[in-house]
């Protein structure tokens, strides 16, 4: 192989970090202490007194406060996502760690790593958002069970997937997510992405295909102006409270408070 000597590229790296989100103004007697903090120009203390948590999260990511309709949709979505449920793998990871006395500071990080997957997780939200942005200009009828590139049609597989965020859950339509979707679709701010997702499902002949929570999250957040990257992060933030509460409930319980299978239920096939 021809020799290429190692040499630093002539790249210009920033000499300091820049941000348009948060402005800390130094105190007079210590340059490391802030005397005033502002979020996209609004004073932090004023936000504390006058705005909700949801409004300030929206401001952080979108650079402007939400309108009333945007606030309603965003706030209801955050509550829709507030608990993945005690059966979700991420919640169970948190409970398993808590009951086995894992350091408390590790609980949310480890659970959110589990939540980061492509099945019922934040990466599925990212992929669903990308799919929706790419596809919502097309007729929903174009995405059918016969679309081979987008759909698993193998009947030996118990799960159906039309596209990221759209398919079955444990073999059938996730009717609870559909209840959440019905509520969100009824809000004034429900936009063209949510409507398109609903039309996509309606266009399917297979009743096992429906909204997954990831697809619903992605559609709402695109309608609210979030990018796929931001949508994935919002999903993680919104899901954290329920996971954390479940872990805290288990933290003081004995290690026997969670199942540990007997040998007869642990088959070794090597």
């Amino acid at each position, binding site marked *: 192989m021809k020799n290429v000597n190692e040499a630093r590229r002539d790249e210009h790296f920033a000499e300091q970090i820049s941000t348009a989100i948060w402005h800390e103004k130094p105190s007079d007697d210590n340059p490391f*202490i802030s005397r005033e903090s502002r979020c996209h120009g609004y004073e932090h203390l004023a936000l504390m007194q006058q705005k909700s948590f949801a409004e300030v999260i929206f401001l952080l990511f979108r650079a402007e406060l939400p309108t009333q309709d945007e606030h309603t949709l965003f706030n209801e979505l955050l509550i829709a996502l507030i608990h993945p449920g005690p059966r979700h793998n991420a919640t169970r990871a948190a409970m398993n760690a808590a009951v086995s006395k894992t350091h408390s500071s590790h609980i949310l990080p480890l659970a959110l790593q589990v939540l980061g997957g492509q099945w019922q997780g934040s990466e599925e939200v990212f992929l669903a958002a990308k799919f929706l942005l790419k596809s919502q200009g097309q007729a929903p009828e174009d995405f059918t069970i016969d679309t081979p590139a987008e759909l698993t049609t193998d009947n030996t597989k118990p799960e159906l997937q039309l596209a990221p965020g759209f398919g079955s859950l444990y073999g059938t339509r996730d009717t609870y997510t559909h209840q959440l979707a019905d509520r969100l679709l009824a809000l004034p701010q429900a936009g063209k992405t949510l409507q398109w997702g609903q039309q996509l499902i309606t266009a399917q002949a297979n009743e096992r295909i429906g909204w997954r929570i990831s697809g619903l999250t992605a559609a709402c957040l695109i309608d609210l102006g979030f990018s796929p990257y931001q949508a994935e992060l919002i999903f993680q933030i919104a899901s954290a409270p329920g996971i954390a509460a479940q872990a805290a409930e288990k933290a003081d319980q004995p290690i026997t408070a969670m199942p540990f299978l007997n040998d007869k239920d642990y088959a070794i096939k090597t």
Partner: protein
Amino acid sequence: MPSKPELHFAEWLARRTQITSHKGGWRIGDAVYNQGLSLLDDVVGSWSWVELLLFNLTGRRPAPALLKWVEWSFICVSWPDARIWCNQVAALGASSQASGVASTSAGILAAESKLYGPGVLPSCYTLLSQLVAQSRSGESIADMVASKQKLPGFTRPIALGDERVKAMQAASLELGFKPGEFERTAIAISDYISDSTGESLNFGGYIVAFLADQGFSCREITELYTYSIAVGALTCYTDVRNDIPGGFLPLRCEDIRYEGPADRELPKSQ
């Protein structure tokens, strides 16, 4: 196609209370079985940790030369330099007085990147597989390069050239390995582009080429390097952990350049 709803979730019902492992498990009072071996009787005292890692990932016990090659390749990515992004994450953890586990695992997560670290290996594998197929069909090197928009495995951040490739090529020779089809193709591409762009085969591209020639799949290669940066990250953690809290690259308020909106009042009617 199944029509009754219960057929759609029968697969999950069968799995509710049992684990089936194809790797092994603990039979209390008997042994810890690991792919047919007793971990404590057959492995402890004779195998190295990396040997067990390779065996469990691939199901194959590595030849001594391959084992040494893998261990040396891990050393190549164990840099005690806290400017490297994943290592800086670990150092920041230390500066926040987070634990070594938290800081190192944060560094490992950071290294699953699209620009460097184990996160680039799948795209390197995909590209090299395509190039090998094109080479087999008689395409010229120029046509192969022209057909690609990106060449993962042939560039790296910060520097041109990659001394680790030279070090591992020398080690490979010493261990008795000869370049296979993937490595020969990678070298041919490297030689071609180094003349025109100054870029060359980087370490990720090299290890993928070498291990593909040894029969490793994309998934096996990627999983093998899961912990690969851990030594560097943990070393950077230990470098900082006894320093003063917050003492790693501390920033004054004014060290962050604010580029957002000017100070503004909250709207009255929101």
